[in-house]
């Protein structure tokens, strides 16, 4: 870690913690900006659905007292922040005694797994394809085939998910239509069968993300490679008679991948948003489906908790990418950013 400049690390950490603070504060403020208070609003919605809620006033008062909504706002805010620091996200209102943190803890690994593996695939494939597109020694056929594979680029993963699940899940019936593993497993276990089931179920959701995303990275990579091809050190490398593959890897890809890493950090937010919706389509056991059911059940506590944890996870991913960036680019510490 010696090559990381202190200034850079401090700035990244500052952004990380400020992001968490801003997100937490937004989630605290938003319900309080709406007319009325969340409890009254919730009971009002309940009575809208059920027609009538008995002792509505008593319920509202009781809950207000229970959640401390009669305290001054700053006391509420401090208590809320204190609770967040202890990962106490409150209780899920619609599934009463389950704490939000327990539901989230069950769902989060699935989302991280899905998004993580999808990211690994589209980043690798995208950059490889982009490099091949720009490289002068790539066969003609490959240069024609790659752009054709990219026509889905920029379509939201959600729509790709719909098409994939219909074609491969319903029409051809080769992939499961929903859930993260087969229902014959009552809970996750460490057996080959289970892992196979998870891969089988995860394939389509991951593809929904990969298919529409890798082209974007290929285009970015191609742009970088084209710029690099014009550099003087490329002429020198060729003049030295270095092997084309060596030049491609050491001189071109190594340099072109750096801005791609920065771009990856920037795109995490969009990526997580997209995967939330893909999960909804596939009814995947992750955070997206959890948030969707929470919206359905109008469980505000659960919506807040799930959103906050997903924001924390995204910010953490960005932080990790940002901190690993100088490790692959020694110039950063020399420039002393």
């Amino acid at each position: 870690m010696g090559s990381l400049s202190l200034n850079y690390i401090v700035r990244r950490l500052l952004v990380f913690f400020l992001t968490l603070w801003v997100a937490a504060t937004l989630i605290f403020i938003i319900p309080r900006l709406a007319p009325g208070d969340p409890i009254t609003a919730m009971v009002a919605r309940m009575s809208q659905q059920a027609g009538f809620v008995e002792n509505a006033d008593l319920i509202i008062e009781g809950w207000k007292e229970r959640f401390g909504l009669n305290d001054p706002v700053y006391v509420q805010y401090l208590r809320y922040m204190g609770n967040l620091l202890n990962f106490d996200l409150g209780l899920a209102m619609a599934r009463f005694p389950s704490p939000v943190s327990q539901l989230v803890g069950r769902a989060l690994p699935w989302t991280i797994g899905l998004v993580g593996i999808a990211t690994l695939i589209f980043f690798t494939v995208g950059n490889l394809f982009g490099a091949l597109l720009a490289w002068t020694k790539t066969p003609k056929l490959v240069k024609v085939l790659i752009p054709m594979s990219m026509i889905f680029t920029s379509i939201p993963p959600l729509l790709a998910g719909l098409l994939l699940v219909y074609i491969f899940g319903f029409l051809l019936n080769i992939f499961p239509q929903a859930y993260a593993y087969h229902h014959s497993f009552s809970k996750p276990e460490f057996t080959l069968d289970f892992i196979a089931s998870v891969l089988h179920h995860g394939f389509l959701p991951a593809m929904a993300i990969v298919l529409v995303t890798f082209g974007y990275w290929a285009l970015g990579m191609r742009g970088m490679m084209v710029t690099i091809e014009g550099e003087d050190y490329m002429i020198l490398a060729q003049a030295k008679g270095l092997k084309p593959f060596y030049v491609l890897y050491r001189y071109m890809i190594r340099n072109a991948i750096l801005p791609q890493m920065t771009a990856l950090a920037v795109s995490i937010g969009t990526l997580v948003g997209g995967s939330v919706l893909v999960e909804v389509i596939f009814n995947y056991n992750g955070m997206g489906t959890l948030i969707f059911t929470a919206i359905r059940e109008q469980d505000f506590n659960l919506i807040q908790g799930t959103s906050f944890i997903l924001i924390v996870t995204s910010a953490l991913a960005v932080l990790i990418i940002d901190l690993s960036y100088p490790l692959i680019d020694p110039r950063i510490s020399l420039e002393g950013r």
Partner: protein
Amino acid sequence: MAAEANAKTTIVAGGTKKAGAFNRFDNPWLNWKFLAGVSILGIIFFLIFLGNTFWDTSLALNASAPLNLPPYGMEYQKGKNTILVGVPEHPLGTENSGRDMLALLIVGTPRTLGVGAIAASVGMLVGIFLGFLAGFLGGWIDDVIRLATDITITIPSLLVLIVIQSVLGSVDLITMALLISMFAWATPTRYIRAQVLSMRESGYVQMARLSGVPVRDIMFKEIMPNLLPYLAASYIGNMTGAIISAVGLEVLGFGPQRIPSLGVAIFFSIEAAALLRHMWWWWGIPTVILAIVFIALLLINLGLDEIANPRLRKAN
């Protein structure tokens, strides 16, 4: 279409033969990707216009047509014995609550595009303002703006929008567009700031400065015109992002429910298990229209990239 073909021939005639030689007919704006994207969007707008003129758009409302009809000429097995056949009165079929799919597309497509355009425009204006401010003034203003953009970009906007909308319930499209624009300023700000920073050091800006041109004139008369292709590309990217957010929120059920947009139509179809019932036209047609819109926007964006960056143009 004619313009597109024309552009192709111009580029072939002007560009490839004498690479590097100056050719005054080699207009960078005659880029086939850019023109193809613009043509597709143009065709979509034209079709919407035709539809509004010749089709009864009130059919997009609930219960204005028979239920669950497949597109014209197709058969759909509903239940064991009933088979529904598409009728010419509803060429693209109808859905579960009696909306005509064609009318739904005519009404829904401009609404979806409109949300994107409004959110992207607001985000862009704020982005131009903050980007210029940060890039030009520097110092602590730059630090604050950079920090704010970094934070906004890191937070997945969809999640905050979900929290907001779960408090507000379903909102009208203008409100939704404004909510989305709260997050749509960060990427343009970052992008424009970087461009302004690099242009500030360029020869002609230095020259203008030395000649005592006021800062305002340097910004709007020297830098702005050169930024136009970048601004356009950034705007299109922003619009893509805004439409994705809007469709996402609508699919989660936060869209306006009475007069549907494309995302709301997809939400209804998921709610009613249209996939399971093999009513492919219900979710499929809006999905395909959206996909075409996104492909058109991507083509425009790629074209603008090549217009702004001569190296990319040469690589083709």
